[in-house]
């Protein structure tokens, strides 16, 4: 192979690899069998009840996330956590991910404090919500939108 040819080929390879991620992102996306939209996820958790917006649930998410692959989420719920009045479950939902359910945390009074924190992936700019189930059967919700500059779920 001549030097000139080699550089030509190198240029082609570089161009293809630069364009490829864009194509794979826009092209046919493989669907997961766990795909679930936001509305079906909420109704699956609540069983038809409409969750109330409440100031008791404190959702802490950055407003602008530079990297969608790692978005820290903290949910804090005001609750005495006694055996008669406690937070049963905390669900973290991302509205536009192919599977809106991120995590379901089932708590018990032995936790002492209703708090959960983790890091999630976001495919793009969307709303993140925390759905909280209380021991008396009520559902509370807190929502916040997050701007993502680079998506995390290719």
């Amino acid at each position, binding site marked *: 192979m001549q030097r000139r040819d080699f550089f030509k080929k190198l240029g082609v390879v570089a161009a293809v690899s630069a364009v490829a991620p864009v194509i794979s992102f826009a092209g046919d996306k493989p669907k997961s069998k766990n795909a679930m939209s936001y509305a079906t996820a909420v109704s699956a958790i609540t069983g038809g009840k409409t969750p109330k917006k409440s100031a008791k649930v404190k959702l802490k998410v950055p407003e602008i996330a530079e990297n969608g692959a790692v978005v820290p989420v903290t949910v804090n719920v005001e609750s005495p956590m006694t055996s008669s009045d406690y937070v049963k479950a905390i669900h973290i939902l991302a509205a536009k991910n192919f599977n809106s359910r991120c995590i379901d945390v089932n708590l018990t009074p032995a*936790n002492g404090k209703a708090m959960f924190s983790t890091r999630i992936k976001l495919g793009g700019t969307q709303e993140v919500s925390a759905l909280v189930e209380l021991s008396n059967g009520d559902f509370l919700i807190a929502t916040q939108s997050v701007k993502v500059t680079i998506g995390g779920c290719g």
Partner: protein
Amino acid sequence: MADKRKSLIKIKPKKFKDGEVVKVSFMVMHPMATGTTKNKKTKELIPAKFINNVKFNYNGKEITNMTVWEALSTNPVFTTYMKINGKGKLTVTYTDNTGEVNEKSKKIKPKG
């Protein structure tokens, strides 16, 4: 107990008394592949491999049970609170969607 992954249980504060409520973090090195991403070089799908379920057990009692879906970050962290109730052992069991089950435990010794 298939292959042992690197994991860690952290309790804050380090020194605690009986009856105190402490912060517990569980970290694990795990790819958390969603099954929808492609390898950029070979353009092949990366098969899904993510944690399905995490359980916190303290002295044989289940404290927290989490159902996990794909959308958690690589090398996830799970942080909650826990009420200290005597000497014992905290065991975290986590299950994979491929059936891999692993365990990590930490002794709990309250002072005073």
